[in-house]
């Protein structure tokens, strides 16, 4: 549906996709302490691909994504569900957050936790849902 030939858009889309994806991961990981988080990061990531979608169409976007949006949703929901159980094995109520601090070489500490897993689940679900709708709509449009 989108007409080819807008050179600037083409170039911009190619370069913006990785940048925006990187930015979305950044937003996701810092979300627990600064503005950001799974919802916002998921929307930013879908924004990146939405731009690409408008520029190159559904087929190429699918190729670029390599993974079906439906699978993204599945992964997201699965991660969300997984984060429920660790607390249970500790004998606490479901969904009680668990923290596993890991020391990185260089003295930095990274905190792995069930809320982080959960937030990543949210990220993938939002990302997958938005992409599923947009790609499906665009595909029918192109037919």
């Amino acid at each position: 549906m989108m007409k080819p030939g807008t050179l600037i858009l083409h170039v911009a889309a190619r370069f913006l996709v990785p940048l925006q994806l990187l930015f979305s991961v950044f937003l996701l990981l810092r979300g627990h302490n600064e503005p950001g988080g799974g919802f916002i990061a998921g929307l930013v990531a879908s924004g990146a691909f939405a731009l690409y979608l408008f520029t190159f169409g559904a087929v190429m976007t699918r190729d670029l994504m390599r993974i079906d949006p439906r699978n993204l949703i599945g992964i997201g929901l699965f991660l969300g569900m997984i984060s429920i159980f660790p607390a249970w094995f500790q004998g606490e109520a479901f969904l009680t957050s668990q923290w596993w601090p890991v020391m990185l070489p260089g003295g930095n500490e990274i905190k792995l936790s069930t809320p982080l897993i959960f937030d990543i689940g949210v990220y993938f679900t939002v990302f997958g849902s938005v992409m599923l709708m947009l790609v499906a709509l665009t595909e029918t449009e192109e037919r």
Partner: protein
Amino acid sequence: MQLSVLVIYLLAALTPWLYSKQQARTANILALLPAALTLWFASHIPLITSGGILVHEYAWIPGLDISLTMVLDGLSLMFALLICGIGTFILLYAGSYLKGHKDLARFLVTLLAFMGSMLGLILADNLITLFVFWELTSITSYLLIGFKHESADARKAALQGLIVTVGGGLALLAGLIMLAGAGGSYSLQEIFNSSEVLSEHPLYVGMMICILLGAFTKSAQFPFHFWLPNAMAAPTPVSAYLHSATMVKAGIYLMARLYPELGGTEFWINTLTSFGALTMLTGAFMAVRSTDLKKLLAYSTVMALGTLTLLLGLSTELAMMAFAAYLLAHSLYKGALFMLAGIVDHETGTRDVTQLGGLRKLMPITAICTLIAAFSLAGLPPMFGFVAKELLLESLLKGPVGLLIILMVITSAIFVVVVAAVIALKPFYGRFVPQARTIHEAPKLMLAGPVVLTTLSLLAGLFPAVTGQLITLPASMAVAGQPIEGYLALWHGINLPLLLSIISLAVGYGLYRYWDTLRDTLRILNPIIERGPEAGYFRFMQGIVIVSEWQTRVLQNGSMRNYLRTIILTFVGVTGYTLLWRYQVHWNWDVSVYLHEIVVVLILVSAAAAVSITGSRLGAVATMGSVGFSVALIFILFSATDLGITQILVETLTVILLVLVLFRLPGFSSTSTPAERGRDAFVAVLTGVLMTLLIMITIDVQLFPSISDYMIENSQPLAYGRNIVNVILVDYRALDTLGEIFVLALAALGVYAMIKFRPDTQPGANHYAGTLILPPKQVPEKHLVLSLDERKQIKEEQIRAEKLRIKAEAEAKIATETSSLTASNSSNATEDDSLNTTSSDEQSNNSESNKGAQ
């Protein structure tokens, strides 16, 4: 005891598996369970006769005062023995009767489930549990009566039974709740032991009416008797079981159970005796009119149920003795008779007694059993039925009833003799009527039940004192709620009851000789019968249909806008009333406000206003964008960074979405009249004002301390997160968020499904359907009233045109791709323009311009 009920259900669940292994033998194996239960219950006879009761307590839902406590006393023992004992033989009988039937497993499952429910019903101590089992019997009996679900008659009869009994069940629930409220407990034992005098409670009459409605419908009392004969559409084992000892006796059981609490009042006596006598007469009278063996038996069951109700109504000790004896006698002979009728039907293929005769030689055992059972039915010595009938007449004569009721009872007694004679003599004696198939005696397993039951009937009659001592007297005492001095005897000496008995026997037999003439004479009454209660039932059902049609027309008129308007106005009315009545609004104007905030709000409001009056879709979408971004600005200005970011991102995606879909829909058109606009604007403004007031009030009112403080305080120490909003989302309220991402995923999958999956299977439709995004068709108004064929034609034409168009477009596309950059730019420009024009022209413009480029 809880176990006994549960085991039956468990076995029911295992039946299909068992059936796959054992086939035809399944029923015989299953019969072992009720047989064992019979023995188990029988082992408690000594305890019960010595005046004890067995209580097994088990809490179920303690918070709601609902328990699974079960109590075994004289009354429930007698019922339990009948349910399990007759149940054993019914299972054996059904195994042979339905041998090779494809749904035998299903039948056995339902039958066992019914047995379990019935047992639970008579053992339950808690009123709610009792009600649950009560309804379970209604449902399982619905399945049993409708077993031959291919037959419309069976379905109709099953539904009729269900509607009548469940309708009564509804009233019963109300009655039981009133009873619990008045008695102070849901436990029958506790109500019984409490000092409350329920008969003087102000709700007494109300609860009585409700409870009796339940009992009367279940036990087929006049005017609800009509469902019982119709239920004969069921296979014979079902009729034999449901209508001898179980289902229809549930109502009787309930009345007997509640007698100590509710019985003995003038209201009780008058209601029960009159309805009982009326039911007796109706049943007996209708029985005489019938020629179908099962119908004969069914109506005589109605008559017996009337008798039992009448006896309960009499409220004397003698009547209670008669009640228990009659109940036992009836269960024994009626179970046997139904099974025997089934055998005759099974072997000859007909149940019409006028088509039967002289079977005695071919089916000797059946004939003898029928004769003995019919003796009991008619009340001939030395059968147990005679003992019961003597007691009945005696208690009636000594009871608090008028001459009319006594006359009704005696008339029914005469009719019953006719019925008994018809059943016992007509098919087996007299001239042999040739049948279509060769007739032989029934298989042993089918005969087992009738033989045992008739033998018991005979033995009980020969040794009435023992029967009374072991079974019926404890039951009578449980009903009466106090010890009864008395014994059962075959011979009471020559007295008035005996005389009446002899008279009724003689007259009855006499009438039997002229049965054919009698039926002809009674046909005069047909018009009256056709306007009886059953006609009322059908009129009622029709009324339901009419009312629902009417209310669908008025309320569910299909106009979404009317629904919306109704919902909104109701909301405004109810909420507005509560708000203004309870609270006051404080307008706190003297807060500092900055200019830029005012500007943002003004943009927001004017954009909203512009959206609602704009005539173009592009304008609407653009102004919607301003609304969204103003909202985002407000979020950011007032410390909600995360919200601002989210809102901006979502706004962007929304615009993409709208461009993809919304512009493929037709443009705005003004179809409303000014009056309609005015009305809708009024509704809208009303809502707006209400919401404003709502906010102003919620700001002032703090009903309870906010939980936010806890979340703020513990965000870093406990949850190690400095962005409190995110901590709430992924930690404090993670379960909510989990639900929300599921909703989102579902919405996405729903969109995907709507786009990708098409149920349309018309030839050529696949392609048409695959393209969701199509330019709108110019469809003539009258399209909506076209016939289906015409529509199909139009659609096919559209499809053809569509295919041509797409083909042309594809060619154009290929051409465009090979052409220069400027050409495609010009086509882009054309498309942008076309957004403003009516989109129906859009695609054609597009393809034309593309062709031009080529």
